[in-house]
């Protein structure tokens, strides 16, 4: 029965003390969120660390959850902020302001994975990962939120605290660059 519930209803049930509702919700978003983070930071260990932090924040915010937006928007918003914190601590170019719309665009792409790991991965997947890694963080995030989170432009705008047109523009640029890198595979 709970499997048919919406994400928001499951989260409300968990807020009211239903642990099983959380388990269903977790199964729905575990892969999406993990892959989103993995492609964002390019490191599996870092992705797991960020992944755990984000879910712990979801659990901590259980008592104050209100379905003002979709659950996907809410959890990816948490992911967005957690990534920003990571970038601020680890990025070479320090962010001056949090509300800087161009801040994410200025963050350089993550470094390539170690050569020892490249052999373990599928060639196409590697090329996709490399193509995503070459994108600016904001464009990459926009693309991944759309593809992994199944979010609309409006949801992405709400999650990233930006305007819809900004998101649309980032998406356009991201698709254009990816297409240029993976054209032979399309």
């Amino acid at each position: 029965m709970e499997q048919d519930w919406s994400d928001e209803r499951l989260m409300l049930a968990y807020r009211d003390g239903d642990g099983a509702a959380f388990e269903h919700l977790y199964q729905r978003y575990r892969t999406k969120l993990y892959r989103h983070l993995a492609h964002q930071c390019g490191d599996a260990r870092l992705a797991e660390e960020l992944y755990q932090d984000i879910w712990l924040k979801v659990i901590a915010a259980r008592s104050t959850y209100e379905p003002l937006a979709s659950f996907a928007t809410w959890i990816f918003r948490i992911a967005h902020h957690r990534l920003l914190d990571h970038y601020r601590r680890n990025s070479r170019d320090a962010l001056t302001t949090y509300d800087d719309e161009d801040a994410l665009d200025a963050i350089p792409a993550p470094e390539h994975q170690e050569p020892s790991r490249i052999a373990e991965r599928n060639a196409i997947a590697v090329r996709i990962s490399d193509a995503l890694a070459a994108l600016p963080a904001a464009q990459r995030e926009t693309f991944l939120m759309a593809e992994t989170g199944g979010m609309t432009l409006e949801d992405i705008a709400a999650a990233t605290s930006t305007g819809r047109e900004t998101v649309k523009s980032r998406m356009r640029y991201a698709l254009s660059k990816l297409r240029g890198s993976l054209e032979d595979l399309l």
Partner: protein
Amino acid sequence: MTPHKPPIDNGSDPALSKLFHENASGEPSATLDAAILAAAHEALAPRPRQRPWWLRLQAPFAVAATVVLAVMLTLTMEHNPPETLESGAKPEASDPSPLEQKRSDSAVNAEKRVQSEAAQAAKPAAPEAKTKSAETLPPPKPALAPPPASPAAESALADRKPAAPPMAPPPAAPATAPSAFEAPSGVASGAAGKLSERADQPAKAEPEAPLQKARSVTAMDAAPAPASAAAPVRSRSEMRNEAQITPRLSAEEWISRIRQLRQQGQEAEATRQLQAFRKAYPDYNLPEDLR
């Protein structure tokens, strides 16, 4: 043929999406899943509600307040002990005779009146005192009991504690009538006469024996004690004992006694007797050699 351009204006590219999803990989580990699910269930466990700090400290506060209150009460009791009836009731309860208590309470008043009257009569009566010095002491009269007091005063007097000592320097017995004035007082004879007139009225019913006894004791207390210059401070009992031994002296005899002490070189005793004489006869004109 131009390559097919995917519709990207709407924010999506189906071909890329398909490529991305077909080659997507990566999932969280089982350990990570278990840790997150455990944290989610632990968050649902009821936590012991912490009481506010003022509730947690309620018992210690109560104990401290009780201790402080007890200490304050103890200190207050020590500084301001309550007046008990025992200290005031005992004399009343043990007072055998309310009449004696009345006499003692009114003795002071009577003595004051006598003093004032004696002062008035002292000057004209001085020559008479010399002639009467050799006379024996008038018989003790019950009439020298204190003058009648008003009913209200009598009740108030009955509630009083035993009277202060009489005017005579050695303190008298508690239940005493005016004593020193009566004794060898040739000076106060006129006043004594007036006293007797007054005292005759109400006091006839009073028993004479206790009065006489008290008077004799107190009168002898007023007389100069045997010379004993060694002890500057003498107890009442000592003085009373001496008074019982020495006979009653008139004022003139007392003065002559003082002169004798001086001649004998007992200056200290003479001075003490002189002081006692002045207390007994404050208005008496001392001879120049004794001033």
